[in-house]
């Protein structure tokens, strides 16, 4: 009898605790708009997860200090609840569930990587929770008919097709021979699809098409093949490991190609880890600080980079910039919706048409940003290789340096 009483009071105490905690975390509390995000603070994506978080935090502080969000004549401030998803898709989906059903979050920010975004999107969709994400570029995210998913970045298939166009242009408009090596994951395979389309469009031929297992840190065989068949352009995409391995082995094996196009150069700190060996590599980037986009919160890219550097002590990679842009999009949508109704905010997001320091943002029906082209930069070093810089070379509108083509052969470097 006595024990029953104790159990009963214990249960009711917990119930009381739960009920209060739910209300205290509801979407809009007092003057706070609470956003939720599962993010990779540990596990294999942790470095990019931290870039993402820093980008979010930087924008939250900036928006809050510059007057916050005005809805219905009242001013609100942003606040974000983070959970660590351990770079694990299953965990990410659980945490999204928890953020929405336990913490009462009604607006979400995306995680890092296409894989984790893919895991979370069905959950946010189920609950009708609008999610603005900045780090899931896989095309498959935008073909599922999701209504509540919005991505500020360009989809993965657009990362490197510019490079093929550039190679064709340099070849006097004639088709080129392409060698490519891609890791076997959602993102890299989407980049590959983009190349396939570009090849078809330009009549170019793909002469090597290797898929790299994710455990592999040796590309010697692929590169030996490249040496033997002499393509006009070599395309490599395999996250930071792919970029680092490729540059190391291209230099060691003295592989001469007129053009080398890659992804993840700045995430891999390519020029820092490899110095002069990384020179002339072309890299796809969502953003570069020298682009001339503007907004009233961060000014422009250069100012953003300087402020970010001051706060976090490193140069912002594009992963951080796009994450900051996600908050600007949310603020804009809340103010236009003038409401915290999920449906209304969703419709306002769908109608977004704005410029941020990161680029123009306008969503297609699938949720991807169609108003921001990718840029290509080329690693350029000074004579002794002590200092290497990334210079935008394409598209011509944003170029701050002229493309060096073809890449000088190793015997002359």
């Amino acid at each position, binding site marked *: 009898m006595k024990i029953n009483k104790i159990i009963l009071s214990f249960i009711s105490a917990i119930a009381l605790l739960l009920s209060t905690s739910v209300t205290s975390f509801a979407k809009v509390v007092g003057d706070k708009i609470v956003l939720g995000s599962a993010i990779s603070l540990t596990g294999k994506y942790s*470095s990019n997860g931290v870039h993402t978080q820093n980008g979010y935090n930087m924008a939250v502080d900036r928006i809050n200090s510059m007057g916050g969000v005005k809805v219905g004549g009242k001013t609100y401030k942003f606040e974000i609840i983070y959970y660590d998803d351990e770079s694990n898709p299953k965990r990410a989906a659980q945490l999204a569930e928890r953020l929405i059903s336990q913490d009462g979050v009604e607006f979400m920010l995306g995680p890092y990587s296409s894989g984790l975004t893919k895991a979370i999107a069905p959950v946010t969709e189920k609950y009708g929770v609008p999610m603005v994400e900045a780090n899931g570029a896989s095309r498959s995210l935008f073909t599922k008919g999701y209504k509540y998913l919005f991505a500020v970045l360009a989809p993965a298939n657009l990362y490197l097709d510019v490079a093929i166009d550039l190679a064709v242009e340099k070849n006097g408009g004639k088709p080129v021979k392409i060698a490519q090596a891609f890791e076997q994951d959602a993102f890299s395979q989407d980049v590959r699809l983009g190349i396939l389309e570009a090849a078809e469009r330009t009549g170019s031929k793909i002469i090597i098409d*290797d898929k790299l297992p994710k455990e592999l*840190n040796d590309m010697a065989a692929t590169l*030996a093949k490249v040496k033997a068949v002499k393509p006009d352009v070599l395309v490599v995409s395999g996250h930071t490991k792919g970029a680092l*391995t490729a540059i190391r082995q291209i230099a*060691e094996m*003295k592989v001469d190609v007129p053009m080398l196009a890659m992804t993840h150069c700045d995430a891999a700190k390519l020029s820092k880890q490899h*110095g002069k060996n990384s020179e002339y590599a072309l890299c796809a980037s969502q953003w570069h600080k020298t682009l001339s986009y503007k907004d009233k919160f961060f000014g422009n890219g250069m100012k953003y980079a300087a402020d970010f550097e001051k706060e976090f002590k490193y140069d912002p990679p594009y992963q951080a910039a796009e994450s900051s842009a996600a908050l600007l999009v949310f603020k804009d949508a809340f103010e236009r919706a003038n409401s915290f109704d999920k449906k209304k905010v969703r419709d306002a997001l769908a109608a977004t048409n704005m410029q941020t320091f990161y680029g123009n943002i306008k969503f297609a029906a699938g949720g991807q940003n169609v108003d921001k082209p990718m840029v290509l930069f080329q690693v350029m070093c000074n004579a002794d290789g002590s200092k290497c810089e990334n210079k935008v070379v394409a598209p011509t509108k944003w170029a701050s340096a002229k493309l060096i083509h073809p890449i000088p052969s190793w015997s002359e470097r």
Partner: protein
Amino acid sequence: MDFLIFQVPMLTLQATLDGILLGILFALIAYGMALQWGVMNIINIAQGDLVILGGYIAYFMYLWGIHPAWGVIVSPFIMYFVGVGIYKLVINKVVDRDLFISILATFGISILFMQLMNFAFGADVVLANSGYGTTMLFDNSVTLPNSKIFSAFISIVFAIGLVVYMKKSKLGRAIRATAQNARAAKILGVDTEKVYAATFGINAALCGVAGALISITFTIHPYMGLPYTIRSFMIVIVAGLGNLPGVAMSGMGLGVFEEFADYILGTEFRIGSVFLLLVLILVYRRFKLSRKREYLK
């Protein structure tokens, strides 16, 4: 396009040389595994993670401005004590139990190491630049990075050193005696506990050497250990325990096999083909064993 390797003879040579150099490195890791498997009857799933940890030691030396090649001296020294530490904490409790328990225990250590390395060193892919050049043969049509040649050379030096040590030194003799019959060795005054600890330490030290070489030749990452465990497991399975020339040969064989699988089946099947080969060999061994039994009947 397919089978490019047979159309261009130089590629065959390139693949064979790449494979042999790579295989010698694999053989070094496998040698450590064979040693400890033979002496203690423990299959170390954490082998690859010890390798990666050794790689990080060389990488940090590189960051501090020391040439990473010194890692092949420093890394085994540190890793020896890591190995002894692991033995004292975990392995000595499972060493007399059946194989399954020890596989579970080392599997746990493997996961722990991955997470700890990720926590401590971050999830970035890193490498140490040796600045060694390239050896070019046949008018630049076959290229051998000097870092790979260096790796193979150092591996051979350490392997030979260890063989001599096992033959000549007192500890080496004690280790061999324990491997043959632990109980008899104990009766004759060998401190088997100490021998086990030293064996585990030596294995970890070999992993340290290999890791330092891998950070110079390839790239390292906290989660990249498992393929090295699998490869060394396979080499040991093929060669058999206590068969050092066998380990060296099957290591090189595996290296060449991988390179050729890459050219013929495609890069995506490179690691997959290693697994396939492992299955085939196990089936073949089983088949051979069953025939033998029938014969005995």
